[in-house]
């Protein structure tokens, strides 16, 4: 049969109008045998998406394919004229984009977009095409496959939309499908469903595919062959097993090391049962946005009845998917959002609910660090001004004393002093996040609220930031509230954890979190959804994780928030009353009707799963 795709000496340049062209893909060669899935792995700027797009003869505006050869089925793609390219795209090579929400036209129904190419080419009648689309929807495990196509993109969830985009790609039975980071924008529990659906259709149809990703664990579920890229160059090509178990290239090894969850911060030695009041304590917190009613309750409640504690020198992880209210928790603690109910205590003393009424010293002792360093640093200020302001504001430092302290801070975050005169736009992502952290440190705080601080960074850069945070904690004895959606990061640096779901605390764990089951059913789902870096994991986890389909239950406000998605809900119990808080044998406190013994029994097959370290 031979190779379907042969790429040799491919070069792509980015040419700006004035300057000379900058190479972004340099002499890349690889081939894909028929029926195989090849992964393009790399961090941002590695050129992985650019390479994938050249397989369709496409370069993004501002880029140009400068040379080399791309052969599909023996035919040279780069020699095709415009009409031939249009014929190639969609029919022979199809594309699944990263963000389905952006890649679907918001003003047309999904089915219209799925069958569009087939109708333009006149490959099938509309009725046949729609029937085929419905078959694909079914194969991709979409709910209500007959009707769902009639909706508009904003009316279905992100995971569903991503699968419908796969249906759009597969409707012409293309020889090659390109998946461009198709699950990166999804929550981890959604990602696993989408991956499973993708894997099934690719396997059933024997499709040849290219899977572009930065995530080795995801790739190891999908691909048989890997190309590791960095700065537009191929670092290593090999079969999946070889790359996973015996990477030869130093960069691949570094990538693997950063991706393997390891304990990064030593556990705090401070005992949980310390008699001193906790640094931060939140009691019965309810908060939200929007218009407030007569009792001061906002119409859109984001957090409900939250209790938590952070002790001096410890790191509390707050984990949950997008929309679970974890960022709101940081905003309330910092005073940016006054709570509707409940109190926030600092060192045992209640803090004013909003900004007014907090003293400057209280402001100083709680600092907040945001996710996106691009928007967290004022683009019109220099680094010296960004770091100098809190020094001046809290400590009254001016002139030489301030400059000296700025130097010390830069030293502390391992950045050279000459960076002080630069503006944020001149720094790299990792440098920006370090400055972001240093600004918080300048206040000499007791507690730093970290909102997804590593999510926007590449794995290796993010790992370095986590290491830095660990050193700072040891040297300065600060505490962190570490907000994240990434369970392996939380596991590797946190002493205690709370799990949020739909604004409620469903579980809290003290000391070495996520080490010993049983857990709350949602936590269990979270843990078991994180892909492992080995092939075959998806199939195994799939065998355990088949949520039984239960009749939709009426989800009132005073029922368990996880009821609709819970795989172990009890009819007549869970849909009748609010669950109690239960302390399990391992010390974890969960919001569930199940007892310790129930959970152990229900999740017994999960003992077969390898221990997630």
């Amino acid at each position, binding site marked *: 049969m031979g190779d379907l795709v042969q790429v040799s000496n491919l070069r792509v340049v980015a040419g*700006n*109008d*004035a*300057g000379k062209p900058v190479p972004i893909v340099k002499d890349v060669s690889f081939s894909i045998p028929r029926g195989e899935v090849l992964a393009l792995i790399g961090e941002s700027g590695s050129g992985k998406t650019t390479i994938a797009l050249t397989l369709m003869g496409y370069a993004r505006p*501002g880029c140009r394919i400068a040379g080399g050869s791309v052969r599909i089925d023996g035919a040279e793609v780069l020699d095709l004229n415009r009409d031939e390219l249009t014929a190639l795209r969609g029919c022979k090579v199809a594309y699944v984009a990263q963000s389905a929400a952006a890649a679907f036209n918001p003003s047309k129904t999904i089915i219209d977009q799925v069958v569009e190419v087939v109708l333009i080419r006149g490959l099938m009648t509309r009725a046949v095409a729609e029937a085929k689309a419905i078959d694909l929807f079914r194969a991709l495990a979409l709910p209500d496959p007959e009707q769902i196509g009639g909706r508009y993109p904003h009316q279905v969830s992100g995971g569903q939309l991503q699968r419908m985009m796969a249906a759009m790609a597969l409707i012409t039975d293309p020889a090659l499908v390109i998946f461009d980071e198709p699950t990166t924008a999804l929550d981890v529990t959604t990602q696993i469903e989408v991956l499973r659906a993708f894997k099934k259709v690719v396997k059933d149809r024997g499709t040849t595919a290219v899977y572009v990703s930065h995530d080795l664990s995801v790739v190891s579920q999908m691909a048989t062959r890997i190309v590791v890229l960095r700065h537009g160059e191929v670092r290593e090509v090999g079969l999946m097993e070889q790359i996973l178990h015996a990477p030869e290239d130093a960069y691949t090894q570094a990538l693997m090391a950063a991706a393997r969850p390891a304990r990064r911060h030593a556990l705090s030695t401070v005992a949980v049962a310390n008699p001193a009041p906790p640094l931060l304590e939140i009691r019965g917190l309810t908060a939200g946005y929007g218009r407030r009613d007569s009792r001061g309750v906002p119409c859109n409640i984001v957090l409900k009845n939250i209790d938590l504690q952070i002790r001096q020198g410890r790191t509390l992880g707050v984990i949950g998917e997008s929309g679970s209210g974890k960022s709101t928790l940081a*905003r309330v603690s*910092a*005073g*940016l959002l006054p709570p509707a109910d409940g109190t926030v205590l600092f060192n045992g003393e209640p803090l004013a609910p909003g*900004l007014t009424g*907090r003293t*400057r010293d209280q*402001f*100083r002792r*709680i*600092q*907040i660090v*945001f*996710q*996106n360093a691009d*928007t*967290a*640093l*004022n*683009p*019109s*200020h*220099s680094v*010296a001004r960004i770091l100098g*302001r*809190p020094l001046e*504001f809290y400590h009254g430092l001016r002139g*030489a*004393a301030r*400059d*000296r302290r*700025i*130097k010390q801070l830069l*030293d502390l975050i391992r950045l050279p*002093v000459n960076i*002080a*005169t630069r503006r944020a736009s001149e720094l790299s992502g990792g440098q920006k996040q370090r400055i972001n952290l240093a*600004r918080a440190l300048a*206040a000499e705080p007791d507690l730093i609220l970290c909102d997804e601080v590593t999510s926007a960074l590449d794995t290796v850069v993010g790992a370095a930031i986590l290491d830095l945070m660990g050193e700072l904690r040891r040297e300065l004895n600060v505490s962190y509230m570490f907000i994240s959606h990434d369970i392996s990061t939380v596991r590797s640096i946190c002493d205690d954890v709370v799990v949020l779901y739909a604004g409620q605390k469903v579980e809290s764990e003290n000391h070495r979190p996520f080490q010993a089951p049983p857990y709350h059913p949602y936590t269990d789902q979270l843990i078991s959804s994180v892909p492992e870096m080995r092939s075959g994991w998806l199939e195994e986890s799939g065998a355990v994780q088949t949520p039984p389909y239960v009749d939709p239950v009426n989800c009132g406000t005073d029922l368990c928030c996880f009821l609709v998605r819970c795989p172990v809900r009890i009819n007549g119990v869970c849909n009748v009353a609010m669950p109690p808080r239960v302390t399990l044998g391992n010390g974890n406190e969960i919001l569930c009707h199940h007892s310790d013994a129930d959970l152990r029994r229900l999740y017994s097959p999960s003992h077969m799963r390898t221990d997630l370290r």
Partner: protein
Amino acid sequence: MTQAAAPIATDKAVATSGLRRAGQFLMALPLSGMIGLGIVVFWLLTAVFGPMLAPYAPGAIVASDVFDPFSARNLLGSDYLGRDVLSRLLHGARYTVGLAFAAALLASITGTGLALTAAVSGRWIDEVMSRMMDALISIPSKIFALVMVAAFGSSVPLLLLIAAITYVPGAYRIARSLAVNLNQMEYVQVAVARGEGRVYISCAEVLPNMIHPMLTDFGMRFVFAVLLLSGMSFLGLGVQPPDADLGSLVRENISGLGEGAPALIMPAIAIATLTVGVNLFIDSLSRSRRTMGEV
């Protein structure tokens, strides 16, 4: 590493980097932008120094005939009364450029100030102010000008006031949406969580990031003001004789239309080059910022 506290950023370094930035900015301009900038600079200089260079007094009747063509004595010919067109043009440019510039500046500053106030104040103040601005913007600029002139009679200060009030709502809208977006930025949230006051946040965190777009907007308002004021003068409701701006010059010499007199053509060209020049410059500005942002 030395322990001595060397100053981190000297003024000199900042100044040179500012010059370098300006140089880079000029080099990044496309040809049309450079032409536009040239025209803008020319007219600004004319407005400042023009009257000093005028060969005759603007009101003096110096030519023997009316609607003279170009000649050595009257470079741009003579007008309907036999006055020197060049001298009248140089004086008129000061009115047109000066009035429009002052009005646009007043409008931009007022609009920006009100927008910042609205953005950091409570919902009520914001709502009331935005409603008022919506109402003002619904009165077409020329209609507003006509009502004002009918009520108070035309005068230079009134024209300035009219043009300024007319363009405040537009500047306010742009500035407010900028300020509201910037307020959501995480660096502003960090400053709020640091305990900073509203004035510091507005002036130090938000305002510096509004200046670029507001300057572009200022250029647009300037063009609009030139068009409005010369239109009013053309109707005979703008700058009143014996003073004259470029629009008045077109109006008073309209009877030279049949013979294509320079007295009519020259002020017309002057207005067109001024507004087209500013437009070219602004357009290239936003375009070059876009390409610079992409890199």
